């Protein structure tokens, strides 16, 4: 069994998460993905776990592709309470494997709950906590890339013609 763990949390919580994963799957080959600052510290405490850099060269699509090739049986992603956008959460979902989430929001820095993590709870959770401005920006981007773009193809030539036809009159300031 192969388990990937995205350590998108602080090092203490990551430490506990790795211990918990090891306890739950004692025979699994576990691969942890951590940032540069924490990787060495975690490696010293979890010698049997392979720890990799969470920002591999080659871009995100190549990263996801390589993970897909490794065919992990479980993907665990830490959701440590912050609502900041964390692309690795999406990577966990994109791998298409049953993903589990850990929420270590409590002050005790311990695992609070686990659950299968799929697109629906992810979107629900993010959607409910989303900043209205963020939602508005997202909606505007979707509109701009679809209907807005089509309308712009008509509107911009008209705007150009209108601007060219505009005959200037001396204003009050001139």
């Amino acid at each position, binding site marked *: 069994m192969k388990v990937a763990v995205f350590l998108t949390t602080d090092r203490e919580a990551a430490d506990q998460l790795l211990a918990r994963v090891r306890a739950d799957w004692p025979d699994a080959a576990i691969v942890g993905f951590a940032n540069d600052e924490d990787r060495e510290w975690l490696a010293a405490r979890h010698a049997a776990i392979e720890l990799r850099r969470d920002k591999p060269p080659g871009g995100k699509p190549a990263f996801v592709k390589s993970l897909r090739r490794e065919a992990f049986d479980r993907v665990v992603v830490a959701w440590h309470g912050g609502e900041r956008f964390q692309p690795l959460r999406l990577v966990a979902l994109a791998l298409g494997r049953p993903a589990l989430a850990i929420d270590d929001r409590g002050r005790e820095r311990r695992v609070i709950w686990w659950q299968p993590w799929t697109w629906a709870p992810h979107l629900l959770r993010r959607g*409910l*906590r989303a900043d*209205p*401005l963020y939602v*508005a*920006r997202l*909606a*505007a*981007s979707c*509109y*701009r890339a679809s209907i*807005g*773009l089509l*309308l*712009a*193809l008509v*509107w*911009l*030539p008209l*705007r*150009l013609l209108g*601007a*060219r036809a*505009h*005959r*200037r*009159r001396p*204003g009050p*300031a*001139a």
Partner: protein
Amino acid sequence: MRAVLHALLLPVVALLVLPLASLAGVLVLLVLTVVDLVWWPVVVLRRRPWQPRPRDVSAASIVTVTWNGKHHLEGLLPSLRREVEAHGGDHQVIVVDNGSTDGTVAWLRREHPWVEIVALPENRYFVRGNRAGVERASRDVLIFLNNDMVVRPGFLAPLLDGLRDPRVFAVAAEVFFKDPAKRREETGRTRGELRHGWLKLAHVLPSRDERELDYVPVLWAGGGSAAFDRAMYDAIGGFDTLYDPFYMEDMGLSYEAWKRGFRVLFTARSSVLHEHRGTSRKAFGDDYVDAMIRRNQHLFLWRNLTADAAIAWVLLSTPWSMLLRGKRPGRSRAYGLWFEFRALLRALPRLPEAALGRCRSRLHHVRTDGQVFPLANSIAAHRRAEHTVLGRLATPDPLRGRRILVLSARLPRLGYDGSWTVFRRLVLQAKTHRMTLFGFVEPGDDGAAAAALRAHGIEVVTAVRVRNAMPGNLHHSVPARLWRDYSAPAMRAAVVRALESVDHDLVQIEYPEMLHLLRDVPKYTPWLYTCHESLGFAATRQVALARGLPRLAARFRALQATAHELVLLQRVDHVIALSDADTAFLRPRARGLAFSVVPCGGEVDTVPTEVRVPEAPATVLFVGYFRHGPNVDAALWLCNEILPHLHRAMPTARVRLVGRDAPPQITALAARPGVEVAGYVPDLAAEMAAATAIVLPLRQGSGLRGKLLEAWTAGKAVVGTRVACEGTAARDGEHCLVADAPAEFAQAIVRLLGDAPLRARLGAAGRELALSKHGTAGIVAEYETVYDALAGGAR
């Protein structure tokens, strides 16, 4: 679970509140429309503009309201007494006691028998307390002072002098806080505008001009530190009880005076120290005070906004503006929305009173709402419309000097990017004119650029550039880069403030990004635009460089940029383009707009021509600021397309790339054989001297390239594209070598590297051209001609 419930609260509150708020807005609009229609014949038949009357400004009645504020009066009254005695007028000081229980009245009688006391049996708060004081007042001028103020020496004279003009209704003093470390939320210099369906009011820090002028217009005179004409005060009806108990009553009074044709002024020559909100917030709490402010803002709009479109817009966008405003510090957005809704509900019972006041006032209005805001916010607009003298600002040259406001997308600086040419020009212009430069800086800016400009007598105002987080640009009207980097509301507000607070005869706009920011900003004076690069021309040029699908995208961007640029140019009075190519592109498209072609340049002699650095063999140098897209393209084209040809002919040739902020694709070029990426170098002159030749493989952008002038000035031979040589009188083979295809370009470099006499001849001819055609004095003279045409002869 709790988190989910918490998150659900906002949609639930919004669903409950927003429809009701919409309904309330429509209802109020209906009521006001019916009232306006019924009252309209009366307004037409019985319109009575108020005529100014002479007034005695030698003395004032000074009114202070207090409630359990003995400790505040202990600071105010001694300072006031000193000031009254120093001024020498027959002033009357009235303290209105709002039923204090701290022994204020007895203390006043004992310690300050010179003060007249109006002892009220109960707390009538600010509005009705002041009204009680005014009933006792007997002078032609009323001065209202908060009890937690301390007046500074010289407080009275400027306030009273300002009222000598019979068309001035009120004069406000500058407010400082007793605690100098406190953020100055209240200054006395007030402004406002209707934006996003709501009234935005603010106290702003007075600018240099606002401090140096005797008087400047303000939207309202604060009811706690200003002087008012008594007759007009009575005619308007005084502080309106509509706003009882407090806040917005002074705004209502001043706004009404503006609409009746009077003026409200501010003077920095008179000042007070304030223990900000010393009584109200402590006694009533922040929530209650803020709720009163919000309620009274609704009432103010209902009562005073008489422009049909404006009031309709405000009321119909009630839910939207509530959503935008609905934030309370430390509370959830759901609570903020609820708070706003409660304020609206609190205002509704007073709608009949607001409508009645509206009817009464309309009989005397001579100005519209649209006229009031520019007049009250902007010095330049006020000076032009009112033909009034607010004071004189000195210019370096008393005969030819003008007041020029320069709005620049970035601060020009030496040795950083191409903006050094603007720096040189402004420095020379500042010897004649009073120059105020407003420019954006990056976050974390060290202030060195501003300091360098100030050293030459240029007043510099900066604001930090921020990314635009607002959704919008739904139909691609604005090029994406401009929308992202130059459309943030905070940046617009900073530009608006600069336009309002600087007394100027004309506005000089530098860079297209700044012109974009000004697209919906009120215009008061002539606008001169220096077109460093035509957006449309630069975007159109990119079409030819693209192939396949990217070419379609490039066409779309060219269309977008050209349309946007032409719309922007409609607001400009004169364009100074740097090159004939830009003018040839813009002139036929922007019909009727005046164009001049003035090349950029600089004090070329300041760059050393002989630097004792040994010339490196077979090294060509490209210098560019790499945040500028055309420079990145040029470096990539040089290394990807030209360099292979060059190495085939001359394997030892080296390319050196110099410039700030190189992106990864440029730094990655260092891995190529024969390429060095040096990044920023502190001594560019030495760098140029060390190079065998300078290359300018530019294919994109437009305008005139400062880097070409720098190379010529250093006496170096140049190989460039036709694009790079635009705006100069450069001739191929005489001043530089010109090539547009990679093989030709490489061939030209090989020719130059192998021919030292040719390099020397081209370098000398280029330097001669730079000296004769691109000196700052000549450029400034051309600007002077345009100034004369736009702003008339010398002041």
